[in-house]
């Protein structure tokens, strides 16, 4: 997969930034507006897949290599588990207790602000990171798998 024509390359090099920004917006505002970690993570992954379609697989691998992507995946999973464990350690002793909101923000008028809702934005960021890295890895693994089949058939 060597990439597409120069028209596609030029347009996608502009559009990928906007898609990436929109994914970040969907993740960060997941507790205020529709969206959240999963949808935003898929949008982030699709910006990288657009890069892969337009410029070829090698270019995308230079931008986000496979070890980095799998590390991001693990970081997202660990962050989500850490948020859950913090509720167990700092709170009333229950998993996923919203300790930031219940301890510091309850009763204040922080609602509808970006910094509200306690652990929910942190969980959104963790899930977004995780979903983006995993879907990128899936597409990468599948696109690496395909030429091998046809190569085997030619042999």
């Amino acid at each position: 997969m060597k990439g597409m024509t120069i028209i596609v390359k030029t347009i996608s090099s502009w559009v990928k930034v906007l898609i990436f920004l929109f994914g970040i917006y969907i993740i960060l505002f997941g507790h205020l507006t529709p969206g959240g970690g999963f949808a935003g993570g898929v949008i982030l992954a699709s910006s990288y897949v657009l890069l892969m379609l337009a410029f070829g697989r090698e270019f995308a691998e230079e931008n986000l290599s496979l070890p980095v992507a799998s590390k991001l995946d693990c970081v997202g999973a660990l962050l989500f588990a850490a948020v859950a464990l913090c509720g167990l350690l700092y709170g009333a002793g229950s998993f996923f207790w919203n300790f930031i909101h219940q301890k510091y923000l309850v009763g204040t008028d922080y609602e509808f602000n970006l910094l509200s809702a306690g652990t929910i934005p942190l969980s959104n960021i963790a899930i977004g990171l995780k979903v983006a890295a995993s879907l990128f890895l899936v597409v990468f693994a599948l696109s690496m798998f395909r030429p091998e089949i046809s190569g085997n058939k030619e042999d």
Partner: protein
Amino acid sequence: MSIFYILLLFMIIAAIVAVETDNLLSSVICVGAIGFGGSLMFLFLRAPDIAITQIVVEVFGLIILIRATISRDRTFISGDREFFGMVVSVVIIFVIFLAGMTVFETLPDFGTPIFAQAPEAASQTYISDGMQKTGAANLVAAVILDFRAYDTLGEATVLFTSIIGATVILRKKSKKLLEDPDE
């Protein structure tokens, strides 16, 4: 309500085109069009969270995933349909359709969910106290990341396990072979 019938007609036409066309890529795009119609339906039913997830997964998961992974020499479908398999699938779909009709007769009217009739139901508590208890303006985020966060943890675990399986099965060489190419 007429917008739903227009969308339904659009989705049925897209489904027929997706089955009948020979080009694999246009067939996939037609399946994506069905999902797009479904996400528009969710949008008109005032469920924007589901609409965003639906359109993102349909467009990404179908069109881009298949476009990125398809090999260029296999974009056309060849061969005829088997008659026996077609008859069996039509019969199965007809039976599921009849069962679905009897289920739909027992459903409550639109806009009056069955949980709303029970005052002690958990969903009523989410709607009345969710904002105060979690501070999140988006109640869907409050439910999936605070009240029902175990569910999201399980979903994340499923995703993590499937990625491990996919990267292990689909890799080109094992790690041992990468480290010692002589053996």
